[in-house]
Structures are given as structure tokens and as C-alpha cells.
């Protein structure tokens, strides 16, 4: 790790100011990606601005059919919170699948979404549920938020404050974890709303995306078998030592089918 200046601001404005004053500043949320990257000397920020002391970034609330989750909510908190379990159980389940207990106890929703790792779990939920990303300056719809590999709609210095998740009638998340990293090789979240079905996919491509072909196949009825004939093209999919693009495309279908099966056994 290279030396850096550490800051612990007490207000959003102060955090932003510190970031912009820094030669090469970076925000610290849970640090589950940033700290290992710094330890490997792959990141060398001049200033680390720790958001932990900034008020207003934590807390969970259910309002008007929406679950509002503060950006600094830790994965373990989301996984275990009774309000989440009641209002949006799929999100609690998804959070419980992230990494390992150490990661879940430190990592945060906002940190994960800001980093936009292609294999992170939360982005599948944001896309499938049609979530809204609130920042210190605006609101961004999830589908406009994820741009590319580690690339989001966030401007430099912009801070995610909260994410709002609309509540579906029912939803299910299936994840195929990488056996070593426990990141999602493929994760598929299927959510049923009054207006129809939405599928969010993470792990397969450079960033999370809607599975529109899968949604169309399921439009005439929630039947896993309806997915059998769907072509999932692997063009642009991720490929690594553990899983080729072709295999990931196959897993998208398998995980989607299993998510639909899980969803079907839930009451509406």
C-alpha cells in the first residue's frame, strides 16, 4: 500500500470538497474492493475520503411500496433486517449471497453499486426491480446508471446517498458463485410486477443488464420451460479461466429457469 491522506468528513459537502481538493481522491465506503486493490498497489489514491462519518447515508425505510436503503447499509444489515425480509425478501436473500461473512459485515450497497463490478450481485436487483439511484445531486434510473465495465453514470465526486427499490409482487434471485471469489459468475433476478415481468442479469456481461429476450419468453406465462427455446447470445459476454462466454450464456438460462421455479412457489 502506498501512503495516502485519510479524511473522515462529517458532512456531504465536506466530503465533496475534500474529494475535489485532492490530487487523486477516492471515497471509501466499505472498502471491500478499494482496500485490497490498494494493498496490491494497483490503486494509489492521494487522498481517501471515508464516508462512514457522514450523516444521512444509513438507514432503511419502507414507504409507498418502495424500500429505501441508505447507501452505507452493510450487506449483512440488508440480509438480516426484518423490514427488508418482509418488504423485499429477494433483496435480503441476494445480500446474504454476497462474498463471505467478512465481506458482508463491511461491504455496503452504495460501495458495490458505485464500483459496478461486472460480477457484483446488487446490480441485478437494481436492474430487475427498476431501482432509482439517488445521489447528492440527482436521481438516476438503474437502467441508465450501469454503463460498462466498472463504468457508471456517476460524475466524478458524486456520492450515492440512497437507493430506492420498488416492491414487486414476488421475485427470486439465483446466483452461480465463482468457487474462489464467490462473486457471481452469473446472477439472475426475476421479478414479477403488476405491469409484467422483469429480469436482471449480472456477471455475464460487462455490467448488469435487462434480460429482455427472457422477459418476452415469459410474457405469456410464468413457466420455466418457456425459457428452453430462448437464445442467449454470448457476444460481449465475460470470459475467464473459470467460465467461457458460452458457458455463461448457458448459465443465464439455467439460473433464470431456477429463479422462475423459486418464484412460482412464492405466494403473490
Amino acid at each position, binding site marked *: 500500500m502506498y501512503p495516502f491522506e485519510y479524511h473522515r468528513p462529517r458532512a456531504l459537502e465536506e466530503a465533496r470538497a475534500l474529494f475535489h481538493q485532492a490530487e487523486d481522491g477516492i471515497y471509501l465506503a466499505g472498502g471491500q474492493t478499494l482496500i485490497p486493490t490498494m494493498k496490491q498497489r494497483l490503486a494509489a489514491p492521494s487522498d481517501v475520503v471515508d464516508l462512514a462519518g457522514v450523516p444521512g447515508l444509513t438507514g432503511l425505510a419502507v414507504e409507498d411500496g418502495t424500500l429505501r436503503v441508505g447507501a452505507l447499509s452493510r450487506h449483512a444489515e440488508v440480509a438480516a433486517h426484518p423490514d427488508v425480509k418482509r418488504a423485499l425478501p429477494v433483496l435480503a436473500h441476494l445480500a446474504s449471497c454476497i462474498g463471505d461473512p467478512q465481506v458482508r459485515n463491511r461491504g455496503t450497497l452504495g460501495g458495490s453499486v458505485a464500483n459496478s463490478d461486472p460480477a457484483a450481485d446488487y446490480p441485478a436487483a437494481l436492474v430487475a426491480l427498476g431501482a432509482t439511484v439517488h445521489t447528492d445531486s440527482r436521481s438516476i434510473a438503474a437502467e441508465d446508471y450501469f454503463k460498462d465495465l466498472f463504468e457508471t453514470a456517476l460524475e466524478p465526486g458524486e456520492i450515492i446517498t440512497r437507493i430506492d427499490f420498488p416492491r414487486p409482487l414476488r421475485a427470486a434471485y439465483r446466483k452461480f458463485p465463482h468457487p*474462489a471469489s464467490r462473486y457471481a459468475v452469473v446472477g439472475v433476478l426475476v421479478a414479477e410486477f403488476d405491469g409484467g415481468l422483469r429480469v436482471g442479469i449480472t456477471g455475464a456481461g460487462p455490467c448488469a443488464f435487462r434480460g429482455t429476450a427472457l422477459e418476452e419468453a415469459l410474457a405469456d406465462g410464468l413457466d420455466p420451460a418457456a425459457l428452453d427455446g430462448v437464445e442467449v447470445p454470448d457476444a460481449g459476454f465475460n470470459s475467464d479461466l473459470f467460465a467461457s462466454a458460452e458457458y455463461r450464456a448457458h448459465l443465464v438460462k439455467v439460473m433464470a429457469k431456477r429463479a422462475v421455479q423459486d418464484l412460482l412457489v412464492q405466494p403473490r
Partner: protein
Amino acid sequence: MAEAVAGSGIGASVRRKEDLRFITGRGRYTDDISMPGQVHAVFLRSPHARARIVSIDTAEAAAVPGVLAVLTGRDMAADGLGDLPCGWLVKQSDGSDMVAAPHPPLAHGVVNYVGEPYGLVVAEDLATAWRAAELVVAEFEERPAVVDPALAMESEAIHEGVARNLAYEWVLGDQSATETALAGAAHVTRLDLVNNRLIPNAMEPRAALGVHDPGTGEHVLYTTSQNPHLERLVLSAFVGVAPEHKLRVVAPDVGGGFGSKIPVYAEETAVLWAARRVGRPVKWKAERSESFLADAHGRDHVTHAELGLDEHGRFVALEVHTTANLGAYLSLFGSSVPTYLYGTLMAGQYKTPNIFVKVHGVYTNTAPVDAYRGAGRPEATYVVERIVEAAARELGRDPADLRRQNLIRPEDFPYETPVALVYDTGNYEASLDKALALIDYGGFPERKAEAARRGKRRGIGFACYIEACGLAPSKLAIQLGAGVGLYESGEIRVNPTGNVTVFTGSHSHGQGHETTFAQVVAERFGIGIDDVEVVHGDTGRVEFGLGTYGSRSLAVGGSALVRAADKVVEKGRRIAAHMLEADLADVEFADGRFTVRDSNQSLSFGEVAFAAYVPANYPEDLEPGLSEKAFYDPENFTFPAGTHIAEVEVDEETGVVELVDFVAVDDFGKVINPMIVHGQIHGGVAQGVGQALHERGLYDEYGQLQTGSYMDYCIPRADDLPDFRVDTTVTPCTHNPLGVKGCGEAGAIGAPAAVMNAVTDALGVADLPMPATAEKVWRALRG
């Protein structure tokens, strides 16, 4: 598991004495030790698999404030330090010596694997050292790397004077008899196998702290070693860092080794040398990514094997051709692992009358390969047990029955194999039967059918393994090329108050010697285990030792302690006889008391100890004091053996393999502490399952390590494993005083073959290269 006896003696599952300090953070590992004035080292490592070093410009780095020195391989060579030796000279098939390429601790002139150290920066603090290391400008002229062991012999020579990159061609057994028998066999099973490269991943990364006292000339090296005396011997006699009597090597608490802390490495050599050069203690601690690159790796074989059977299913011949990847240089015991610890095990548990093994040990531009838990014996078991299973399938025979038919029977012992070993004792059918009962073999078809209804393919696989442990009879080992004897030393100092300090040349880096050895000694003297302190890992305190590897500690080190204890008792009898005015012949020692036979006259162990140090009433011809030592040189190897059975379920849609059941029935001879043995089996099986299903050290065609972190290199976690079901059978070793055989490696030896036999059974394929990761299995399922 065998029922534990009550109390704290032999056979009792005593809780480990050392664990309190380990689990409360009070262990004292190398990195916990700091010296006044200590400075820090960072190593310069090759980014290339193979290159000529054109130039190294250290000026800018050396000018950084806080930097004490930037040292290179040339500086080390100029100071007259020698190369790192290979400790086992393998004779080639034509009688010539193996070809050992020079292995300088710090590379100069050329580099031969990614991560090879070619220099170091020493600075006041670690951050400065890292910053300065990045300012060293080294120019390399890259050359094509040799990576694939199967192609090494056809590739350009890496080392000058090493034709075909061949360190040795080694043979064992009767080739013509074996080939004649194969030609006449009713059936021949042929199998090509790859034994995947593994990266050891001890929990504690390697570390070293070098200290030099210019006043006394003494050097002290604190380091993560499994064998500190061997380290001292190599660093003094071969590398010449310091003479042996001016060098103390301390291996304090060490957090796992699995063989990777046997070799003497560049880094500890360099910090000791650097400490003298800069006049300050120098510390280095590996980052995990350095461990991946530069710890000795394990396995990495490519093998073709043929097993001949007669018309009744009897094995008539086994021929094995293996290319073993030795890496860029011969590590300390790298040459012996794929030869004497591999070819000699090809009989397995079977009466195969003709066996021939040929091994080509080749150099490649990869990290050196050395012992890793099991060291050669897992590779041998993998060959034997995979091909026996394959033969059973080809012949439509029940795999358990085919094995049973060919087992060496209890009445056959001592059994001389065609590959140079004499098994002293065993009962292989007993462990096979017990394992079959434990797994409920008869119920397997039903379990398979039930799994099929859930979309899972269930498979079952066996491994009836044998290993040669308790390394080793010195004379035999030296005849076969070992550079050292493989005896062990033990010393027992009875203190005046009657408690005991035990000094052993074995080294515990997780095995629990402080408990097990205390149990052995405490039982012999009739004292409590808390009255026995076990000291190890310090050449300044322990007279000599060969260390811990090859499941040798209890069988060899423990036996040395038994011999030393016998001497203590013998001297104690003489003291007691004098004090009790009895004939020596009438004084017996039992349950902690010296007693005159058929009398009520007796003295406690403590009373005699006190008299030895306060010799008021004492034999005239006897020296005071009660401290004895022994060197124990084993007569033979020990031969732990057993049957492991794995059941897996394969998800047909995803290819994911789940290990759903694992049974291990092992014969380790007598068991001192069943709980510790249990733990050793669990750990070993976990590592064996890791090899079969998860782990793979992979280089790309340029020699860059592709699996250099835990993001890609998968070591199994608790939730990857079922509850192992373990049990034992017992045939005591016939030639050591404890009747013990050793248990440290069995799990890693049996598990890979058992798991892969189960996976291939589930898939209905002849082979699948390890590890059986999901996509690979998915593709096999698609045919």
C-alpha cells in the same frame, strides 16, 4: 474413529496444549519478532518467465532517503555466497548423475521464472522499500519461455549444458519383465493422466528476520521453516552465509507448511546476508501474491500408464511413464519427490508382480516444484487407483471386488514389492471392509436412483492407498542419493523438581507436537502432560534435527524420545537402587514410581530427579544430573494405508460437482491422540478434495501465473465439504517402539483419486483432468 481412552496418556484425545496461545493471538510467529534497529527488505522479482538481464540501474532507488542498500544477485555472488543446493542426487537410468542447473539464491545474468528474485531493497521502513524497489530500472531481453512439461524435452534448453531440459531420466523396476507380462496379459488398461500443479498456501506466508552481531560474529535467522537445523546446514555448508557454529536458526511458531517450508529459499538467505552488509537486522515478510509466485509449488505430472490383467482379473504388470515438471531449478528435495517418493509406491496395496516406472524430470520456466502434502505419494496413488478403477469399469468388474482380489494379504507380510520397498505390516482388506460398511456400499444404487430423480448424477469412487512415511532409514536414503541422514534426535531434561523439558528435532507447524509428544513422555514417566514442556524449532536449544515432513515426526522423532526416556528410566533405576539399598535388578519403574520388587519400598520419579541434582545419597560411579538424549534412525519406512471412498453428485444442468459423502478408514498403527489424528485427516482430505475439484496452478504460454490470487486460485472452504466420516484400523508398525506410522499426509494422498473416480463414475467418462470444475464437467456431460 477409534474410541479415545480416558486421561492424558497414549490414546487419549487430549486438547492441544498449544491452541490456547494460537486462538487467543498469543502465538509468536516470525513476523511477531522484531529487533531494535530492524529494517525491511523488499525483493526485486522477475516479471518475465525467461530473460537475460541486460542491466540493473539501482542509482535512483539507492538515492531515496531511508534506503540503506539496493543489492543484486551480482553483489551476492561477489561476496562469495554459493548456490542453493538440491539435497537429493538422483542417479539416471544410465548410471550418471542428474543434471543440476546452478541455482543462485538471487538471479544474476538470467532469470528463469516469473517472481524469481534478482535483488532486494533494504530500507528503514516497508513503504520506503517498496517505493524504492519501483525505481530500480532493470532491462531484460526476453526469450521464449518453456512452460508445458510435456513439451519441455523438445524445447530450447533453458540452462546452459542441460540438454533437452532434462534433469534426469530415472527408472525403477524390471522393464523387460513388465513389458513381457503386459504383452501376454489378457487385458490391458491404458490411461493418460495429468496431475495438476498446486500452490501450497500455508496460512502464514513465509517470512525471515536476519540478525548479525558484529561483536560475537553470531548470525541469527528467524524464519518460517519446517527444518531449522537443515536450514542451518545448507546455509553454512553450501551457501556459506555463516559457519554453522556462528549461525542459529529459529523457526518459532509456524503457521502451516505442507512441504512448502522445507526448502531453503532465496529470501531468508538474502536477509541474513543483507543484515551483515547493512549492519542492521533485516526483516522480510511475503505478501500473499509473492507466496503464489515464489513458494515451491507441488505435483505437476503428465503420465501414461498401462495395467495388465490376466483372464481372472489378477494384475500382472504395471508400466508407468511420467514427465515431472521440476520448475526452473531443482528445489531442496525437488528431485526426490517424483522419483523415490513416487515410483516406489506403484505397487500400492496390490500384489502386482511386475512394475516398471520411468520418470523424466524436466526444467521449465515456472516456479520450482518440491514437496507438497504427500509429496510423490498422492501422485503415485492417483496413477494406481485411477487405473485400477478404469480396469474394473472396462472389465465390468465391481471396483471393490477387483481391488480385494489383488490385495496383499495379512499373511504376505513382510511383503517385498517389485519397486524396492518392504512393507512391514498391514491389513488392507480390513480397512476396505470397514469403509464399505461405513459408506453403505450396498445402498449406493438406491442413492444413485434417488439423485437421478433430482436431476443429479451420483458417482462413487475408491482409493485404496498406501504411503511410505517415517522418512527414513539413513543408510538407505543416503544410498539412494539423499544428502543427509533422516534420523531424528530427542533429548529429555528432567528438572530437579521432577518436571521435564523435552527437546525434539521434529518441528511442529500445526501438527500438535507439544501435546502428542508430551503425552508420550508423560505416560512413560507417569507424570502429567502439563509437567512436560516440548521445545522445538531452535538450533540454539535443540541439539540437532531433521525436521517435520513426510509424516515422520512421531514415528522417528517420537521414537527418539522413547529411546531417551528409556535412558532416563535406566539411570533413575540406578539412583533408586542406591537410595533404596536394593539390587539394580530388583528395581522396577512403573506408574511414576521406582519400586523394589516384592516390597513396599519405592521412590517417586520426582524424588529420584531431585536426588540426581542434589546427590547427597548417590551412587559413586554415576554422574549427577538426569538428562538424556537419543538419535533414532528408523529401520524401515512406515506404511500407513487405508481406503477412502467418495460420493459425488453432478448437477446435469450446470456441471457443478458436489462432494456429498466421504469416508476414510486409515491404518496409522497405534494412535497417540485420536482427536489430533482426526484433525490431520480432515485437513488432508480437504486439501485432496481441493486438488480434485478446485485448485490449479496455471501458467499461460508466456509463463505468467494465471492463478496468482484467491480470486482465481480456489482453495476449498468448509461449505465446499461434507462432514467427513473417519475411522481407523490398527496394525502396529513392527519396527518402531511406539508402533506408529504417521497420519499427516494420508488425506491428501487418498482423496484426489477417490473423488476423481467418483466424478468419472458419475459422468461415465474414462478421465477428466483435475480439477473437475463446473464448465469442464458441463462440457463432458455434453459429450
